[in-house]
């Protein structure tokens, strides 16, 4: 396009806009507030009212000392009735303060609230200027521009959406369980989806929990049982989210139910099947320190209480391939013909509680992780401590099952290391390392526990006291410094480091090294985030809508976050956030309809050419191509009203309600 053509085009467009559309002229009232002397001190309010009274379309103009007071509001409602006004402009403070006040007042006098607009002559005029003459002129321009806007305002009704009173909770760890129970106890149906064969998450793997040392399984299993027995909870384990569509109040979820080849209703957990299974694979529940069969139960208290056949390690479903398990299964619970199923559910809200996984040991080569069997991670140590673990609660090191007498714990392995690993602090490691060292001493009183740390972060109720107890009562030796080298020699793990407080070099012949490995968003978090269209932060954790004021909501309305999916956190914090997410979700589920600001995008069907430029501009997927009409239409429920698509529309077919091009042009005109 040549420059001349461009110019022609632009003036052409404007020509279209300039032709005033025939509209019945509105009866507008303007109310100028003194705000005591806050406005009247720098702006000649009488003059503003007087000048505006001569402006085209103004039927009534007055000023008053406090427009927001009851008598002030009465002046507005009286004038609306008396002069039969159909629009109102209040020239006062910022719309963020009193827009709703004056819209409600207008509504009470029978006006559509969207026919009331605010001219901000305090924050953006009287408070920032001193010269009364100039400030008054500016206030007049501001007021006139809003009058021009309101002249072209449509009456709008909030967009109303029905609510499906059911919730979907994704993730069956402590956060998901807590959120599901809270919502279910409030009387709403919950679908709890867990991709593993059992709920329980990482918490069920733990031995004892800080700072009270209560047994994790003892406090977790009752909650798991409650979930399985709850009349309002539909539990779907061994299932994954395949697709989420829809919007707040009306989501549709497609859930893939993987075949477990065992009928939970028939399985009596007699364990005969796993006894004959010839396959041995690493046991995930024991953090790969033991093995399990292809047909297995992850742990004895698993919910649902049933065996699962892991098809990826089974030699084959055909009875010719193996089929030994089915032969010995007396209740005939094994069914090789089970197929994956897609279950569709409709829900009003979604809570994402997808949890965490540990940073891979293989990435921590500098600590000999993945290379030396006696260098393990925190969850593996939990399993060693656990009475239900591979060693029945005895602390035995992996290489030779000897009781380790010198144990080195290393904090911040993979955390707080922006160059090589993760920049963030994983938050819980200081506390669980103190717990590990303490519990180790309880098991092996004549052993020595060393902790390498950068600094100790023990913020939390009774946390600092707990760390002190480890140091004072259990003689745990805290060494401030980083480990420089770890290598194996004569069956021991040599740990070299520096104590930065004394400046001394340290060499420890350790029997066992436990790394407090960084927490990462759980495997599959990326995929889930994409399916839910929830943003992720730079580290991959699910992003909250506002870091301070909306910590349990996602940016997508109706979707909430709970637990370590959002950031590393300990059990009490995860539970608190889960309950927070549940109560936010309940606020939606307890209303029959939701209302949405109607200043949304609209499309002039005649003008739209169906060029689709607007579709990728919309961050909410609210613009959809209508194959039949060959134009783009707007899903008003999804539209949040930013107006980005409007500015991108080359034909002017797209407009934003009450922020139309016509309105903006006429505001510019009156300002200049």
């Amino acid at each position, binding site marked *: 396009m040549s420059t001349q053509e461009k110019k022609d085009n632009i003036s052409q467009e404007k020509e279209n806009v300039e032709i005033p559309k025939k509209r019945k002229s509105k009866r507008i009232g303007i109310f100028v507030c003194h705000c005591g002397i806050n406005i009247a001190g720098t702006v000649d309010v009488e003059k503003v009212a007087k000048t505006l009274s001569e402006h085209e379309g103004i039927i009534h103009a007055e000023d008053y000392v406090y427009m927001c007071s009851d008598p002030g509001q009465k002046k507005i409602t009286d004038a609306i009735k008396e002069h039969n006004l159909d629009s109102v402009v209040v020239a006062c403070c910022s719309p963020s303060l009193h827009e709703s006040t004056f819209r409600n007042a207008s509504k009470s006098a029978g006006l559509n609230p969207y026919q009331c607009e605010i001219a901000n002559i305090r924050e953006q005029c009287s408070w920032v200027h001193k010269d009364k003459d100039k400030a008054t002129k500016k206030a007049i321009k501001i007021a006139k521009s809003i009058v021009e806007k309101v002249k072209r305002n449509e009456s709008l009704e909030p967009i109303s959406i029905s609510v499906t009173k059911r919730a979907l909770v994704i993730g069956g760890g402590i956060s998901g369980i807590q959120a599901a129970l809270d919502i279910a106890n409030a009387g709403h149906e919950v679908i709890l989806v867990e991709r593993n064969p059992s709920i329980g998450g990482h918490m069920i793997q733990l031995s004892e929990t800080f700072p009270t040392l209560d047994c994790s399984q003892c406090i977790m299993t009752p909650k798991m049982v409650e979930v399985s027995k709850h009349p309002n909870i539909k539990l779907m384990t061994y299932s994954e989210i395949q697709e989420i569509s829809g919007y707040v109040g009306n989501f549709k979820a497609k859930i893939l139910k993987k075949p477990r080849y065992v009928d939970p209703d028939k399985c009596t957990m007699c364990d005969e099947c796993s006894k004959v299974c010839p396959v041995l694979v690493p046991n995930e529940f024991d953090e790969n320190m033991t093995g399990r069969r292809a047909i297995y139960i992850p742990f004895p208290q698993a919910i649902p209480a049933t065996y699962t056949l892991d098809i990826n390690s089974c030699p084959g479903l055909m009875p010719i391939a193996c089929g030994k398990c089915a032969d010995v299964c007396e209740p005939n619970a094994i069914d090789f013909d089970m197929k994956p199923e897609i279950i569709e559910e409709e829900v009003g809200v979604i809570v994402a509680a997808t949890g965490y996984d540990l940073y891979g040991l293989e990435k921590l080569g500098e600590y000999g992780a993945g290379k030396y069997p006696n260098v393990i991670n925190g969850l593996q140590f939990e399993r060693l401590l656990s009475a239900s673990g591979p060693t029945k609660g005895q602390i035995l090191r992996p290489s030779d099952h000897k009781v380790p007498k010198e144990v080195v714990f290393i904090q911040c392995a993979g955390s707080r290391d922006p160059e090589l690993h993760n920049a963030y602090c994983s938050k819980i490691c200081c506390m669980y390392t103190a717990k590990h060292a303490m519990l180790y001493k309880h098991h092996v009183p004549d052993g020595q526990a060393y902790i390498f740390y950068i600094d100790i972060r023990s913020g939390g109720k009774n946390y600092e006291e707990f760390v002190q107890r480890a140091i004072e009562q259990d003689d745990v030796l805290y060494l401030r410094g980083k480990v420089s080298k770890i290598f194996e020699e004569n069956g021991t793990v040599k740990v070299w480091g520096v104590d930065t407080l004394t400046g001394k070099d340290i060499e420890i012949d350790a029997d066992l090294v436990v790394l407090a490995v960084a927490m990462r968003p759980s495997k599959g978090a990326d995929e889930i985030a994409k399916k839910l269209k929830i943003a992720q932060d730079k580290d991959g954790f699910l992003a909250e809508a506002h870091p301070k004021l909306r910590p349990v909501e996602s940016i997508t309305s109706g979707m909430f976050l709970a637990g370590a999916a959002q950031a590393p956190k300990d059990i009490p914090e995860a539970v608190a956030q889960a309950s927070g997410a549940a109560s936010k979700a309940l606020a939606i589920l307890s209303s029959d309809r939701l209302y949405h600001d109607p200043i949304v995008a609209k499309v002039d069907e005649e003008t739209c050419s169906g060029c689709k430029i607007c579709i990728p501009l919309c961050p909410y997927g609210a613009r959809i191509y209508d194959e039949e009409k060959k134009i783009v239409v707007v899903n008003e429920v999804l539209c949040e009203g930013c107006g980005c698509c409007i500015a991108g529309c080359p034909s002017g077919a797209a407009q934003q309600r009450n922020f139309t*091009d016509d309105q903006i042009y006429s505001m*510019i005109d009156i300002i200049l």
Partner: protein
Amino acid sequence: MEHFEPKIVCFACNWCTSAGADLAGTSRMEYQPNGIMIRVMCSSRIDPQHILWAFKKGADGVFIGGCHPDDCHYIDGNYNTLRRIKLLKKLLTDFGIEPERLRLEWVSAAEGKKFVMVMDDFIEQIRNMGPLRLSQEASA
């Protein structure tokens, strides 16, 4: 030379820049009164056509304020604004308008001070540049 008071049209998004301007007021800061604000929900609502229109109708400068990158209330509207303004600045020369007469700034709701500074700076800059004189052809 007769006294020149620049006429400036300011567009600001509701969530950041307009709130930042409100904060400047609440903190009783002071700046020159030449700019009149048109509040839109997001800076991405502003069409380059609006800006050209303002210049055609006699604005000496046009100011656009939005949320900082990654802070837009509507996820990434401000990136669209950035692209559009960059492109428009290239075209402005063709219309005989110095690109400096158009300024885009990120002003957050907490940056009352920044709002005041950029406002004064911009007004002063336009004052020094003098009035915009469009050729007959360009203003047609």
